[in-house]
């Protein structure tokens, strides 16, 4: 289903279903049709960003985001009435999902029949989920059926006010250099909010037990090295003015915000890959705002830079055997 979506002429005259002002329509991907509805519904009131804008963003990004979604069990954060209203996490693929939506089962302590995650394998599924006002896409760190094997290790650097993104960058570099001492490379993306996500591509046999204890040790060493700036413990009240190095997402059951996912914040910001040079420049100029990317910027950015996060899918690295 690689071809771009085309619109059923019966449903609409305009060849573009999105941005033409029509509130509903049908979009075709090969032989698959997806009904789109309430396209003019404003999901981000401050920015006037509508559901149609969101679907256009995800479809425009399809070539870049799909490789990161394929084969991965997906949790959606849905905002049926916009980012300032009630939301819910949805793990199970709803029972009314079309038959062409791929699902993948995992055992669950809470559900006898297990959880059936949706897996986004193509544009149609992406459009279908976006139409359900699934703003945020969070994926498991494992790929395919082996849910005990992560394909990367992740650190979520989260600043507790008055700490900022600039503090996250400082700690991010420290983490990067600690890892490069073992010949292991890291990549960074913005959280789309205030923080920074550091990814360590693995793509080699490893278990969550290994990545989790390794990540925990990394977080504790960063904390020990600079206890005034870094905290490795979950407790919220410890975070004031510090960067929380969240190592705990390296877990079979936990998800991390997928690269290029929109975030449900005041404006339609995106979890965007950034180069270490960009991070260093932002730090040098003390300009954290340079690292805020909204949906339209990101579309332009990938045209120019391609997928900075491609190595996360391809680069084979081993956790140092210590």
């Amino acid at each position: 289903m690689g071809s771009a979506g085309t619109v059923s002429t019966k449903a609409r005259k305009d060849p573009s279903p999105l941005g033409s002002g029509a509130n509903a329509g049908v979009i075709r991907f090969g032989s698959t049709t997806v009904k789109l509805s309430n396209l003019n519904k404003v999901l981000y009131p401050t920015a006037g960003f509508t559901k149609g804008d969101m679907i256009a963003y995800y479809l425009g990004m399809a070539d870049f985001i799909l490789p990161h979604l394929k084969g991965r069990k997906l949790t959606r954060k849905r905002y049926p009435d916009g980012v300032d209203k009630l939301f819910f996490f949805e793990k199970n693929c709803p029972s009314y999902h079309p038959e062409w939506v791929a699902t993948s089962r995992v055992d669950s302590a809470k559900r006898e029949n297990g959880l059936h995650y949706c897996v986004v394998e193509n544009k149609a599924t992406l459009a279908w989920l976006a139409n359900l006002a699934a703003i945020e896409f969070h994926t498991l760190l494992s790929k395919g059926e082996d849910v005990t094997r992560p394909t990367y290790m992740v650190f979520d650097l989260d600043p507790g006010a008055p700490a900022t993104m600039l503090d996250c960058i400082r700690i991010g570099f420290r983490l990067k250099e600690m890892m490069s001492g073992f010949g292991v490379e890291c990549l960074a993306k913005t959280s789309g909010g205030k923080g920074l996500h550091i990814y360590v591509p693995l793509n080699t046999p490893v278990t969550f037990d290994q990545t989790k204890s390794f990540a925990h040790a990394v977080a504790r060493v960063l904390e020990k090295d600079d206890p005034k700036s870094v905290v490795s413990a979950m407790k919220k009240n410890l975070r004031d003015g510090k960067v929380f190095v969240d190592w705990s997402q390296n877990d079979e059951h936990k998800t991390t915000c997928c690269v290029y996912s929109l975030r449900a914040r005041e404006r339609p910001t995106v979890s965007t890959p950034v180069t270490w040079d960009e991070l260093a420049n932002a730090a040098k100029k003390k300009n954290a705002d340079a690292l805020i990317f909204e949906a339209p910027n990101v579309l332009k950015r990938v045209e120019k830079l391609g997928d900075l996060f491609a190595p996360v899918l391809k680069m084979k690295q081993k956790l140092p055997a210590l």
Partner: protein
Amino acid sequence: MARRAIWSGSISFGLVNIPIKMYTATREHEIRFNMLHDQDRARLRRKLVSESTGKEVHPEHIIKGYEFAKNQYVVVQKEELESCAPEKSKAIEITDFVNLAEIGPIYYEKPYYLAPQSAPAGKPYRLLVEAMNKSQKVGIAKMVMHEKEHLVALRPLGDALCLEMMKFADEVVGLDEIDGIPTDVKVGERELKAAIQLVESLSTKFDPEKYHDEYRDCVMKLIHRKAKGEEIHIAPAADKKVGRATDLMAALEASLAQAKSGASSSAANGQGRRRRKSA
């Protein structure tokens, strides 16, 4: 496998009399443990012991007494108890027929199946089932079983009759006895819409097969594994982990120290070593 009846009697309504047998419709799946002596695993038994002599009293010498005041008992014989419900003791007499939907689930206690005692009872049994199916009504009756009077509902279940043991009205706790249930809290229309949307997104057909007692399954698995002689360790070897973590942290600290001394400038200007090991 045919099940054994736990009681027999007869249903009566109007002039019709239907001799029936009663079967349990549910089974307990609770895991029952026996008490053993920790020294030699000998089975332990309870004994009924007299408070006055300290000696064991055997069943044939046990009678019933009601404590009407502290340490003062009225002794009641079995025959005397039966005299309270002489003719009811074997009858399920239907007095009313009501709409099934009118009975709140809170009143149901335990279901049983009823089957005709003999072939001739089959016809009136079938008659009652069909009449209730057609009229969409269920019968309300009282019966005495195990020295207790029960309120029951008789309802058709396919071709069979199901007897639902019910609570008496005074056995159900009123909501007025419960504090803190919100009645005058306003909810916004949009919030309500979103909540309804959430409910609808999780809506599905009720499928009892979907739900299992996972705690029980886990305990049974544990028991089977132990029965097969497998050793089961609960606590992980904590010491080993701590040791490994310490080594790991030491190595990470060394790496960080080296990065700081050797390449302190690279962090500031962002020109970190590029040692890509791309596949």
